[in-house]
């Protein structure tokens, strides 16, 4: 039975309700990290540089979005120095990427916490111009970065890990050292805050 045009249009509009987002994990599959780790432990500089290039984007993106652009280089250096100095203690119980993310998150949160304790730099991140990373839409990216720095650091971490870095809640829980349920509830609260701050601006741009 054929529907009249207006009925068909009405029927299709009714079906077009917002639905779950399908997304594929962004993290590449780890293939030969074990050999790379062994070579780094032996102090092979080529291997260390290779490991750096393999993880630099993930670490730099994560750190930049948690601590802000102005301090990100300093924190990233600290993260990689700790990675190379700490590889001897990496026992392979978790994925190397999870271990690296954990170090990066802990260094970033520690940096934010220390910065807040310095009176001359109090709430620096909220007042500094939120320099947006290069993006296909720099204005929106800047708004997102500005909104991010107003979130409590813990919310920021889970939101960046899950929504930007594409980590699952199970991985977020391992990285943040919390329960999966806590990761989910923190993410929900973080998104609510982002929604309040950004309003309809992201939807309007589509």
């Amino acid at each position, binding site marked *: 039975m054929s529907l009249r045009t207006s009925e068909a249009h009405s029927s299709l509009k009714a079906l077009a309700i*917002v639905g*779950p987002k399908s997304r594929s994990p962004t993290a590449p599959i780890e293939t030969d990290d074990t050999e790379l780790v062994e070579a780094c432990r032996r102090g092979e500089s080529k291997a*260390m540089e290779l490991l750096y290039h393999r993880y630099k984007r993930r670490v730099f993106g994560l750190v930049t979005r948690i601590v802000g652009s102005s301090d990100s280089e300093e924190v990233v250096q600290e993260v990689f120095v700790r990675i190379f100095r700490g590889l001897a203690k990496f026992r392979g119980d*978790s994925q190397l990427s999870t271990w690296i993310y954990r170090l990066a998150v*802990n260094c970033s949160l520690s940096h934010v916490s220390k910065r807040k304790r310095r009176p001359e730099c109090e709430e620096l991140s909220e007042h500094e111009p939120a320099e947006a*990373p290069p993006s296909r839409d720099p204005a929106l990216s800047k708004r997102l970065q500005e909104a991010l720095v107003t979130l409590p650091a813990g919310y920021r971490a889970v939101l960046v890990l899950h929504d930007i870095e*594409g980590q699952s809640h199970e991985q977020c829980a391992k990285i943040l050292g*919390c329960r999966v349920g806590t990761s989910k509830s923190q993410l929900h609260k973080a998104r609510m805050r982002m929604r309040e701050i950004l309003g309809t601006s992201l939807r309007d741009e589509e």
Partner: protein
Amino acid sequence: MRCKEAQSKSSAYLDGELSDEQSSAVRGHLRTCSACESLFEDESAFIEFAANLEPIDPPDQVWQHIAKRIAEEEIADSERSSWRRWLVERRVALGVVGASVCAAAALIVVLGDKGSQESLAAASASSDAGALMPSEVVSQSVASERALALSEADLNYQQTIAELREMLEEDRMSWSEGVAHAVDTKLASFRREAIEKRFAVTDGTVLVSSRDPIYATYRAEISFLQSALAGQLPGEEAP
């Protein structure tokens, strides 16, 4: 379903974590509530935007800075005191080292430098509970020498603990919140226990064995710190 319930499920719904039945109920609510539908669309737009942000490359010079800092750290390693380097090497290669062996090594190095054979003997004995003299009352002159050696032993235990704590602190960044909490709790309990035992012992006592409980606490803490440095951390999930 009411608005409050629907909104509380927005993230789970958009992440596809709800059951078919729950998802259907949420969708049903959105069909009849434009306010909630609008909120869901905002959240959905945010998720999509966040997922498609372009990766950021660090500036080119970052690797050079990292390589330089690693080189500096390695030079600092070579300049560390020999017993500290010995500890670092063993924490990686061998794991746990016996607490009494470590404490004795520390005491021998420090006291040995002072060239006092009597102090060395007394302090070495105090580092090993098995070699301690029983509750023996010694003569006053010997007792004063021994009390001096014991106070040095106290200081050396505490110095060893302070250095091990400092080394462990360098590892903190790689711990989960649970591990950090468990380590802090354990260290706080050692500190509390040592303080309580110090209060219970009269300073300058002539009873050598009366400080045994304090040294037992120091040795237990050293053992714990060494295990933690070797990667055996409390509060860690089983692999």
